[in-house]
C-alpha cells in the first residue's frame, strides 16, 4: 500500500517535469534557424507559398499563442499534427516506439546477463588472471563507437555466419526477437564494462564484511555465500549505475537504430529535427522524458526491494 502511494506520488511529480520540458523544447527549437514551411516547400519555395503554409500550420501566430495552443492540446492528450506527414503525432510515436522499447529492454537484459556472471567470477578470483582479463577486455567495448561495433556484428554474425538478420525489425514476435539480438548486443556491450566494474567492486566490498565471514564459518560453500548472501547486497549500487546508464542510453539509441534500420522514435526524432517538424520533436521529447523518469522510478523500486533499509517516502 505504501508502495502504491509512493508510485502514485512519483507519477504526480512527473507533471511539473513534463511541463518544464515542454516549455524548454518548445522555445529552444524556435531558436534554431530554419523555417518548417521553407523546408516543406523544397526547391520551389516562394514567398506566397511560405505565407500560405504559415497560416495553415498556425505558424503566423505569436509564439506565446502557439505555446498555449500546444499546451491546450496536450492537456487533451493530443500531441498535435506532424507538419510533414499531416497526421497525428501520437499515432506516429505509438507506431515507432515499439522497436525503441524492445531495444532498450533487451539491451539492458543482455547487459545484466553478461555482467553478473563475469563480475561474480572476477570477484571470486580477485587479482587472478580471470579477474584482470574481465576487468580489461570489456573496456574495448566501451571504446568502440556503436555505429562501428554494430557494423562489425552485422558483418560477422549476419553476412558471414548468417545467424541473424542484418537489419529491420522482422515480422511477428519471433521476427522481432531475431532482429533485436544484434542491436541489443551492441547496446549491451557498451554497458557491460561499467556494470562489471561496479558490481565487482560492490562484491569485493561485501565479501570482506563480518556476515560473510560468519557465513563461511557456518560451513557454507563459496558459491552459496557469493550468490545467496553477497550478490544481493553488492547489487544495490550497481542497480543505480544501471539505471543511470539506461536513462542515458535512451537518448543514444538513435545511432543504433540507424545502423540496424530499426525505425524507432530515435529515427523519427532525427528526421523531424532535420525537417523542422516541431510537433514530432516535441512529442518524442516528451516520450523520452517519460521513459527516463520511468527508468529512474523502477531503479528506486528495485533499490528498495533489495535493501529493506531504504524507505520509499
Amino acid at each position, binding site marked *: 500500500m505504501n508502495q502504491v502511494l509512493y508510485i502514485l506520488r512519483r507519477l504526480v511529480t512527473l507533471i511539473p517535469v513534463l511541463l518544464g520540458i515542454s516549455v524548454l523544447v518548445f522555445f529552444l527549437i524556435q531558436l534554431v534557424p*530554419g523555417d518548417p514551411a521553407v523546408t516543406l516547400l523544397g526547391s*520551389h519555395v516562394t514567398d506566397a507559398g*511560405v505565407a500560405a503554409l504559415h497560416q495553415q500550420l498556425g505558424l503566423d501566430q505569436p509564439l506565446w499563442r502557439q505555446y498555449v495552443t500546444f499546451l491546450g492540446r496536450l492537456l487533451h492528450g493530443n500531441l498535435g499534427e506532424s507538419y510533414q506527414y*499531416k497526421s497525428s503525432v501520437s499515432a506516429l510515436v505509438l*507506431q515507432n516506439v515499439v522497436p525503441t522499447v524492445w531495444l532498450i529492454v533487451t539491451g539492458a537484459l543482455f547487459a545484466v546477463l553478461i555482467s553478473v556472471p563475469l563480475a561474480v567470477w572476477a570477484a571470486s578470483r580477485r587479482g587472478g588472471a580471470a579477474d584482470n582479463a574481465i576487468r580489461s577486455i570489456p573496456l574495448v567495448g566501451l571504446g568502440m563507437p556503436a555505429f562501428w561495433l554494430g557494423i562489425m556484428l552485422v558483418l560477422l554474425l549476419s553476412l*558471414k555466419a548468417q545467424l541473424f538478420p542484418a537489419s529491420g525489425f522482422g515480422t511477428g514476435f519471433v521476427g522481432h526477437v531475431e532482429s533485436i539480438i544484434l542491436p541489443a548486443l551492441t547496446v549491451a556491450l557498451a554497458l557491460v564494462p561499467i556494470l562489471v566494474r561496479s558490481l565487482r567492486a560492490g562484491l569485493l566490498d561485501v565479501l570482506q564484511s563480518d556476515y560473510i565471514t560468519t557465513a563461511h564459518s557456518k560451513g557454507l560453500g563459496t558459491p552459496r555465500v557469493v550468490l545467496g548472501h553477497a550478490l544481493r547486497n553488492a547489487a544495490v549500487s550497481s542497480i543505480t549505475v544501471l539505471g543511470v546508464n539506461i536513462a542515458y542510453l535512451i537518448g543514444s539509441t538513435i545511432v543504433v537504430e540507424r*545502423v540496424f534500420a530499426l525505425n524507432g522514435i530515435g529515427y*523519427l526524432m532525427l528526421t523531424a529535427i532535420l525537417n523542422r517538424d516541431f510537433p514530432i520533436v516535441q512529442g518524442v521529447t516528451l516520450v523520452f522524458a517519460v521513459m527516463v523518469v520511468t527508468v529512474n522510478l523502477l531503479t528506486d523500486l528495485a533499490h528498495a526491494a533489495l535493501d529493506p533499509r531504504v524507505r520509499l517516502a
Partner: protein
Amino acid sequence: MASSTEGPPSDAFTRRQAMVAHEMSRRSMLRLGLAGLGGVGLASLLAACGGGASSSGASGATAPPKPGGALTLVRSQDSVDFDKTMVFSNASIWVYNQIFEGLTIGSADGHNVEPWLAESWTQSDDRLTWTFKLKQGVKFSNGTPMTSADVKFSLDEASGTTGGWEFINSAIDTVTTPDPATIVIKTKYPWAPLLADLACPSNGIIPVNYGGKAKKDFYTAPVGTGPFAWDTWQKGNSLTLKKNASYWRPGLPYLDSVTWQVIPDDNTRNVMIQGGTAQINENPPFSTVDQLKGVPNVTVTLFPSTRTDYILMNEQRPPYNDVHVRRAISYAIDREALVKAVLFGNGTPGNSLFMPTVPYYDKNTPGQTFDMAKAKSEMALSSVPTGFTTTYLASSGDSTDAAIAQVLQASLKQLGITMNISNSDPSAVHDMQNKLNYEISHSYWTMDINDPDELVQFAVLPSGGGHSFNTSYNSSQAQDLATQAQKTFDPAQRQQIYSQLQALLAEDAFLPTLFYQPFPYAMRSNVQGFSVKPTGLYDMATVSLA
C-alpha cells in the same frame, strides 16, 4: 507489411553467396586493420565483403518478363504526403507517380512529351485553345471509368492551390468538358510549355470530387488510374503499393507489389542489396558506386538526370553585384576537380543554366571553365581588385557541400579572396538562402517537366517567386527572352531564343553551374525493366523479377 528480413524466395541469400561473402570479409578484415577506420574505409569494406574480382552477374538476358513477385526498394528518406498539388518531396512524388497518371507523359530521354491518358490533341489557330481526346477504357483502380469530368476536376484542383504547384498551371484560363471523352483547355496567352506542364506529376488525374471522399481522406489512401494501387504505409518505415488488377496497359504491371523501405544509413542499404533482402537501392553514395560494381549479382546504373549543382551569389551583398567578381569566381572553380572529388568521376562539368537532359540545352553555351589567368584579369577589372573577405554558407553533414567549399576556398585564395566557411544544418541553410541572408553558397535543381520553362521561371522571372534562384539577379533582357520563349511554338525559333538566354546568363555569371550528375541506382541483377527518367520519375509497371 513486408519487412526487411523477408525477400522473395527466388532472391534469397544463398549458401554459396554466403561462402563468397565469408572469404571476402576475412580478407577485408585484414585490409581494414591497415586502412584505419575512416568512413571510406568502412564503406569499401562493406562493399567488398560481397564479392571479389568477378564482374557483376550477366543481367539483361532476354527472357520474357515473369509476372508476379514482390519488390523492395530501399531509400534514405520516407515519403511525406500524397497531396499531389502540394507536396514537393521527390520521395513522395516518385511513389505517387505509380498511382496517378497524366494526360501526357515525358519521354524517356527528357526531350519530348508523348500522349498518355489523352490519345491525341489539336490546337486552334490562335494557339489559345487545345482540344484533347481521352483514351477509352481507362478505369480508376476502384473500378470507375475515367471521364472528362475527372480530368477537369483534377486540373482545376492543381491550378487552385496557394503555395503549391499552381505555378505550373498559371497559363491555364479555363478547362471545359464538351463530352465525356473530350477536354478543352483555354490558355490566357499562347503557351508553348502546356503539353509538358500536363505531364507534371501535380496534374495527375484523380476521381471527380475525390470519389465522394473528403480531400484529406482521399490523399490518405489515394486512388488513380496507374499500375499500382494504395496498400499500406507505416510512416517512417515502409510503404507498399499493390498491383492494380484493372490497369489499362495490357499485361502490366508484372509485379504483385512494390515496397519502398526507409533505411537512412548508407552502409545498411548497401548491405541489404548485397544480401538480397532488397532489390533496388535508390541512393547508393557515389563513394561506393565503384565498389558496388564489383559485387556479384548487383548492378549499378547511372541514369542521366536533370540534377544540376550551382554556386549561388547574393547580389544584394556587394561585391557580388559586380559582374566581374562573379565571373572571376566562376573562372576560379575547378569543375573537373569537383567532379572527381564529389562525384568520384561520375558526372560532367556544367556550362549552362540548362542541363543536357532538357530540351533546348545548348552545348555551345560559353559558361566559364577553370582558368586562373582569366579569373585574375576579371578581378583586376572589378571594384575589389585586391580581393575581399566573404563567408560561404555550407550545409553541415553534407559531404558534397564540404568538398565544394574546400575547393572553392583554395581557389579564391589565389584571387585575394578570403573565404570563411560557416556550417548550418540543411534546413537552416535553405531558409537563409530563401531569405537572401547569405553571401555565397551552393544549391541544386531537378526538373519536374520536360521543358526548361519551369527552371527559367524560377531562376529569371520575378513572377516565378524564386528571387532569381535566391540571388536577386535582375536582368530585363533575360526576362524578355524568357517570356518570349514561353510564347514561341516553333522549335527552331524557341531554340534560338533559349540559346541567346543561356549565353546571356553564362556571361553574367549569375549562377555558375558546377556539374551535371546522374542518378545512381544499385540493383540486384534479377531486376529487369527498371529505368529512371531525367526528371527522376520511374515506371514500376514494366519492372519484373527474373
